[in-house]
């Protein structure tokens, strides 16, 4: 029986309610009374320390507000420095002041209420309707804010209907923080009277009919306000709380005071010093008021107090000139502020950071940790039956000897540091249930990370290997996901501290489980650089090994631990020789117990023709883990490929198969190339005589061509390209010729080089460098470009003073004819630096820009996740997509091109190879299709069974194609197409079966594999698909080079691409830099009609089609005569008549003429009479008209800059530069239903929100594709859906995001921290802690990923459901 504790009567009874979780946060305002009640102490003394440096009572460091340092304790709760969170004090202000954060809100309220009685300035009916709207429970915050704006605009300053007070216009004062009520506009007779009276005085001082609304006045007004009116203004609480009467003095612990100068003085926090100033001013003000000082002195003092309180809250407020202090707002906002610096990202223990270096002997899942680091990073291991002896030994070793331990935790909670105790005693004391914080050991789970963490593969889980020396080491294959190299990079290490954390890390973040990027399903962890080079060399057709060397190579593959089956040598006689390809077959499948049957076809970079018989051996064919042919390179072994060796191993088998193969390859390659040797020297870049001659010839030819072009340009004989002027055409042609020179020089040099040339090998196998790099070293550096053009003119009409003025020769515009080997001439060198600098500047600018873009994307998409009903929803449950990406597949697991779930060709090949035909009979084409139809009618291939129609179609198309091919072969062999006989019935029958026969078993295996794999590729519920999408779009942004591309086909038309374009799309920019409408024509094979449509689109001004615009001065009535040039009009195919010109002039906004002023004379003459005016102004009228008239648009769309006819294989379409999609669609001759624009906002306005969504997807995809980046369309769909799901196109900017999300904490942690917080407390916002940001800020597990699951307890009796509101008192 528990003994009842004697309870003191004064002690309040606190019910023990067990652990609690924060469910929601309400933002609100404190009244002065609230602040006083919360505080422990009143602060009024402006002195802080007494002479003995003891905090003074009622001073700013009163010990009742918490312990200031470790030595003292809190006077309120008697807790020490670590236990006591601190207590608030309060400071009473003698006169109220405004809170700068609410200043605008107060202004809005003042505008709406009567300054006499405090009621709202609306009549009763209007007030009631608005109140009803405001009280609508379905209205969300955005609607309420919009309504409040409407109400504010409705409240006109007028005579109050209730009290009759004449209200003026409330304004902010020009300087200082107060309001003025301006009566000058209100029609008050007394004002008139006053003004007239004042006009008699000689003093010409301007007078203002205004009235200051001081804080006191506003406070008393607010006190008078009715609750109902507050509600109408979307005020959650009483408005008087918006005015500061009391200041809550924060606890000492958040504004520590540091005693310096060996105890003679102290360094105070900014907050403390501001508060000290406030106390000073406050007491002066009190004395002044009590001592009846002159009013202006009091006012001055009050203003001073106001400014200091503003500084306390926001020291960057505009009314504070240059504050040296950091106010409360400054503590919260910004990257280092509380929200982003401390709440969204927290500092952690058990971390390490050091330089990284490579080690191919480690597994890809491992990371080598220096012993020094392992001694500090510990893992708390619980003592059990299985590890007690091990842990005892570790405890005995203690903290300084490597496999040791640092702390022992007893079950009672006490913690022993092993440095200060007898380790043997503790080791003996160890019992089950103790926890030993032991040093990190081999196999422990650690998280490894490199900044910038652009995607989820930037932090992965490795297993530790404790090693000597001082660097973190890992297999080079894992460089790619981290984007790491070893030029001095450092990386971070974290040690998860619980078993749950370790398991979760291993399962979700393990290297093995992140081999593929969710960006597009390509493999990311794969062989790089030297591994590719050595594989390339090993698998050359003429590498042969004798028994000894082949066995040695085989032993390189593993650690001499695993058995290896030596294959039969490829060459048995005259001597036994094994080939390098056989070595690779051993590497894939070392022994018969390894059940890996790899089947794969890849075309390497060097592939030329005729499939497997490719003369340069570029066709890689693995059949049942044997390398049949092909020299392996990047396409097979490298990253960024979907049907490479490792991808196939991963998909067909498991991550472990792929990972262990990578391990073996890394070991073999590193050791092989270590023996073989691979380096580059000066002789590798020395061009041969032949190459030199050819290069000279090419360059001379090119130069001659350029000179011809230039001379024909200067004669004006250049044939213009569509949409270009002569200079542009010349530039384009010269650029084309010069690029041709470099590429031919490159080709020659690639052909000339010996196959043993190291740069050539590297470029061929894809490990490093491109043919361009080689030809730059050996042959010719080529044209240098700045901003996508040839070198610009830095001097007057020339690039450098070494050249004649306005020279356009290749050398004068930055063509570098030399190679890096021969060396550059001074001018060439200068041009080269110009190009180089552009690149450097570009990268510097880009990083900042893409970083911000990624952050915004992440904030916008962070809380989107998949729910169990396959929908994609935001944290508060609103649906963004019904099925993720239209089919609910996981982008990381897609095998085919363009996000198709399966690569059927590869799979079919695998099935055919792994389950051989042998003695079975083949199916006839009809039987194949019959089996297919049977299988496709089962439940798991129906839409209800979770199988998309697209997949079914793909599968059946594939087999139909195969069946057709089979019948073709049978027809060719003169066999019965539909009747397959026994295999051994005839010679031809068996040949046909061997060529492409398929047995019933094979077909069944194929179909089952396809369907099973399809189902396993579904995305899992809880996947944080928003974050993945944001990363998938943000990460490629960092790799994009800032350049504009020529539009397909039309050389002169540039479109913005790269980061700026992505930014435009994501921001949903209203004005984009290159709006282009791609218009399809009704008759798209007819040039003439295309020209006609073009001329009707492009704007034609009167000046262009008029022969003459003359002023005719006649005595009767002067006019302007316009004569149209009909020949020209007809030549241009424009339909313009004098009537249409008349209409155009009438419609021109700046010319205000009436129809009778323009007289049409015949078909091509107009007379324009100026409107009646006095004759003195007539001349001016005429001339101004004459100046405007040539600019009148008589035909075409004003916003269209130009239209260019684009010819793609005989099909013409129009590219219209400019906006106004609606008008373009409406132009006759244009097929409106196929006309597109790249302007998202315009598409939304013209075609609607769904079209805008598609436009966003297409535009992002187009941009990314142009930069050679493939991103799964599902990510773009999600982004587009998020941007459009509210019914309008919202940009991923602070404005858009604040309309998408309603969490205050999330918005505050994004941008405009203080603004969001002040508004939230004004509106009394309630933050349900649901989203990712909020949960991180509050330290609560979020509702995504593994957090989507909840453990719930079954309740015996279900609570009775009631269909009525909860009782008020319960």
């Amino acid at each position: 029986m528990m003994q009842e504790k004697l309870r003191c009567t004064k002690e309040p009874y606190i019910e023990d309610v067990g652990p609690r979780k924060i469910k929601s946060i309400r933002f609100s305002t404190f009244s002065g009374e609230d602040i006083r009640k919360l505080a422990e102490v009143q602060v009024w003394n402006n002195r802080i320390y007494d002479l003995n440096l003891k905090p003074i009572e009622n001073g700013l460091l009163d010990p009742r507000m918490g312990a200031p340092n470790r030595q003292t304790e809190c006077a309120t709760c008697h807790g020490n420095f670590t236990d006591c969170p601190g207590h608030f004090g309060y400071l009473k202000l003698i006169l109220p002041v405004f809170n700068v954060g609410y200043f605008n809100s107060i202004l809005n309220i003042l505008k709406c209420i009567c300054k006499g009685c405090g009621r709202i300035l609306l009549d009763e009916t209007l007030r009631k309707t608005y109140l009803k709207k405001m009280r609508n429970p379905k209205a969300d915050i955005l609607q309420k804010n919009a309504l409040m704006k409407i109400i504010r605009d409705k409240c006109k300053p007028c005579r109050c209907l209730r009290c009759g007070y004449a209200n003026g216009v409330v304004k902010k004062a020009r300087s200082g923080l107060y309001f003025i009520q301006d009566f000058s506009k209100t029609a008050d007779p007394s004002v008139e009277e006053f003004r007239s009276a004042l006009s008699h005085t000689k003093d010409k001082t301007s007078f203002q009919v205004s009235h200051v609304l001081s804080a006191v006045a506003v406070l008393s007004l607010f006190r008078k306000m009715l609750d109902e009116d507050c509600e109408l203004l979307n005020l959650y609480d009483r408005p008087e709380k918006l005015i500061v009467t009391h200041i809550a003095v924060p606890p000492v612990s958040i504004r520590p005071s540091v005693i310096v100068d060996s105890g003679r003085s102290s360094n105070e926090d900014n907050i403390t010093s501001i508060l000290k100033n406030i106390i000073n001013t406050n007491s002066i003000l009190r004395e002044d008021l009590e001592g009846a000082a002159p009013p202006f002195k009091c006012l001055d003092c009050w203003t001073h107090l106001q400014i200091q309180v503003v500084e306390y809250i926001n020291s960057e407020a505009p009314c504070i000139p240059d504050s040296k202090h950091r106010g409360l707002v400054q503590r919260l906002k910004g990257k280092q502020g509380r929200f982003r610096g401390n709440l969204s990202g927290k500092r952690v223990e058990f971390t390490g950071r050091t330089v990284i270096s490579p080690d191919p002997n480690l597994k890809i899942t491992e990371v080598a940790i220096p012993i020094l680091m392992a001694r500090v990073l510990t893992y708390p291991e619980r003592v059990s039956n299985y590890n007690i002896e091990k842990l005892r030994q570790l405890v005995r070793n203690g903290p300084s000897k490597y496999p040791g331990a640092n702390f022992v935790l007893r079950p009672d909670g006490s913690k022993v540091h092993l440095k200060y105790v007898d380790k043997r005693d503790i080791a003996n004391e160890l019992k089950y249930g103790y926890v030993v914080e032991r040093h990190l050991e081999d196999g422990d789970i650690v998280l490894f990370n490199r900044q910038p963490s652009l995607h989820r593969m930037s932090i992965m889980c490795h297993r530790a290997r404790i090693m000597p020396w001082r660097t973190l080491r890992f297999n080079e294959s894992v460089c790619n996901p981290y984007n790491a190299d070893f030029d001095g990079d450092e990386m971070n290490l974290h040690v998860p501290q619980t078993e749950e954390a370790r398991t979760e890390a291993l399962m979700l973040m393990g290297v093995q489980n992140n081999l593929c990027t969710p960006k597009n399903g390509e493999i990311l962890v794969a062989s790089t650089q030297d591994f590719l080079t050595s594989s390339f060399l090993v698998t050359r057709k003429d590498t042969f090994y004798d028994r000894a060397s082949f066995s040695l190579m085989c032993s390189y593959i593993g650690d001499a631990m695993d058995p290896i089956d030596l294959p039969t040598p490829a060459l048995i006689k005259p001597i036994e020789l094994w080939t390098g390809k056989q070595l690779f077959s051993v590497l894939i499948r070392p022994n018969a117990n390894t059940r890996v049957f790899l089947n794969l076809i890849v075309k390497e970079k060097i592939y030329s023709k005729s499939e497997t018989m490719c003369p340069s051996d570029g066709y890689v064919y693995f059949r049942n883990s044997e390398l049949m042919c092909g020299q392996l390179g990047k396409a097979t072994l490298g990253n960024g490929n979907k049907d490479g060796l490792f991808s196939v191993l991963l998909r067909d088998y498991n991550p472990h198969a792929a990972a262990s193969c990578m391990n073996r390859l890394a070991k073999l390659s590193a050791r092989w190339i270590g023996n073989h040797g691979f380096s580059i020297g000066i002789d590798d870049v020395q061009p041969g005589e032949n190459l030199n001659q050819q290069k000279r010839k090419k360059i001379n030819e090119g130069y001659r061509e350029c000179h011809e072009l230039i001379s024909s340009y200067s004669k004006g004989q250049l044939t213009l390209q569509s949409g270009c002027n002569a200079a542009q055409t010349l530039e384009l042609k010269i650029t084309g010729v010069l690029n041709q020179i470099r590429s031919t020089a490159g080709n020659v040099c690639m052909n000339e080089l010996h196959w043993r040339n190291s740069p050539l090998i590297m470029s061929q196998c894809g490990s490093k460098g491109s043919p361009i790099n080689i030809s730059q070293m050996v042959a010719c550096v080529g044209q240098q470009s700045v901003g996508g053009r040839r070198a610009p003119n830095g001097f007057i009409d020339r690039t450098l003073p070494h050249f004649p003025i306005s020279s356009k020769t290749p050398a004068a515009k930055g063509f570098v004819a030399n190679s890096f080997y021969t060396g550059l001439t001074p001018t060439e060198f200068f041009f080269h630096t110009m190009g180089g600098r552009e690149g450097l500047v570009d990268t510097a600018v880009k990083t900042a820009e893409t970083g911000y873009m990624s952050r915004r994307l992440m904030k916008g998409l962070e809380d989107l996740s998949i729910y169990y009903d396959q929908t994609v929803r935001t944290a508060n449950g609103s649906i963004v997509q019904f099925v993720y990406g239209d089919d609910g597949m996981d982008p990381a697991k897609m095998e085919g091109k363009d996000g198709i779930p399966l690569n059927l060709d590869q799979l079919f090949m695998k099935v055919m190879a792994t389950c051989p035909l042998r003695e079975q009979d083949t199916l006839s084409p009809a039987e194949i299709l019959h089996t297919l139809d049977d299988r496709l009618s089962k439940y798991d291939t129906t839409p209800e069974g979770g199988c998309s129609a697209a997949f079914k179609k793909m599968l059946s198309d594939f087999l139909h194609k195969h069946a057709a091919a089979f019948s073709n072969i049978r027809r060719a062999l003169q066999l019965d197409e539909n009747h397959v006989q026994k295999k051994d019935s005839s010679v031809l029958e068996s040949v046909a079966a061997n060529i492409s026969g398929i047995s019933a078993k094979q077909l069944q295996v194929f179909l089952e594999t396809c369907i099973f794999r399809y189902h396993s590729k579904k995305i899992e519920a809880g996947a944080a698909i928003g974050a993945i999408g944001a990363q998938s779009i943000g990460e490629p942004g960092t790799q994009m080079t800032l350049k504009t591309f020529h539009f397909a086909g039309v050389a002169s038309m540039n479109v913005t691409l790269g980061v700026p374009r992505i930014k435009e799309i994501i921001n949903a920019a209203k004005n984009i830099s290159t709006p282009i409408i791609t218009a399809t024509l009704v008759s798209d094979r007819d040039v003439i009609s295309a020209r006609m449509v073009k001329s009707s689109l492009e704007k034609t001004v009167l000046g262009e089609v008029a022969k003459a615009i003359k002023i005719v001065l006649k005595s009767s009535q002067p006019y302007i005569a316009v004569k149209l040039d009909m020949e020209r009009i007809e030549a241009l195919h424009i339909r313009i008549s004098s009537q249409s010109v008349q209409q155009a002039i009438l419609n021109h906004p700046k010319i205000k003429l009436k129809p009778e002023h323009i007289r049409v004379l015949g078909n091509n003459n107009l007379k324009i009479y100026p409107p009646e005016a006095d004759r003195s102004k007539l001349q001016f009228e005429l001339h101004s008209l004459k100046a405007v008239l040539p600019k009148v648009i008589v035909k075409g769309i004003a916003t269209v800059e130009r239209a260019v006819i684009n010819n793609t294989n005989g099909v013409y379409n129009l590219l219209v530069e400019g906006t106004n999609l609606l008008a373009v669609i409406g132009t006759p001759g244009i097929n409106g239903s196929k006309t597109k624009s790249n302007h998202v906002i315009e598409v939304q306005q013209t075609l609607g929100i769904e079209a805008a969504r598609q436009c966003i997807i297409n535009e992002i995809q187009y941009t990314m594709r142009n930069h050679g980046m493939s991103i799964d369309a599902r990510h773009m769909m999600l982004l587009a859906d998020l941007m459009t799901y509210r019914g309008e196109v919202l940009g991923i900017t602070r404005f858009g995001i604040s309309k998408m999300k309603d969490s205050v904490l999330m918005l505050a942690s994004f941008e405009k921290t203080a603004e969001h917080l002040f508004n939230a407390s004004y509106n009394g916002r309630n933050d349900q802690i649901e989203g990712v940001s909020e949960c991180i800020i509050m330290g609560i597990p979020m509702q995504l990923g593994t957090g989507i699951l909840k453990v719930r307890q079954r309740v015996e009796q279900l609570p009775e459901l009631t269909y009525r509101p909860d009782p008020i008192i319960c």
Partner: protein
Amino acid sequence: MVELLFEDIFTLTRLDPDGKKFDKVTRIEARSEQFDMSMQLDVNTEVYPLHVGDKFTMVLAPTLSLDGTPDSGYYTQGQRKSLADKFEYVMHGKLYKISEESSGPNVKVELYASFGGLLMMLKGDPSNATNFELDQRLFLLMRKV
């Protein structure tokens, strides 16, 4: 007695049809006398030099053992009596592809084999392809005549 899959005498017509790409390996083109088969074959000419106009017997066998015991797939060392004794150049590999070529009036069958990356393509009448099966282990034996 071992059953040979194919045997014929070839005349070498061309070396390296697409230019010399490798130091030790040469691709030869040859035409057979009896069955009028055409062949492309990669030969390690470093150890077995060949020249245009050379005549050689080429045999494809499933095993090297004289009694016809099927090949186990594993290599046994030692100087046992075998089919190879009578030949100068012996390779071991695998048949990986059978396809048809129907460009001409009569259909031809192409057999592809890889001897550890040294490729063979044998093209001819379908009747010669009866004995062959996909994934079959092959020994290629050559002897100059």
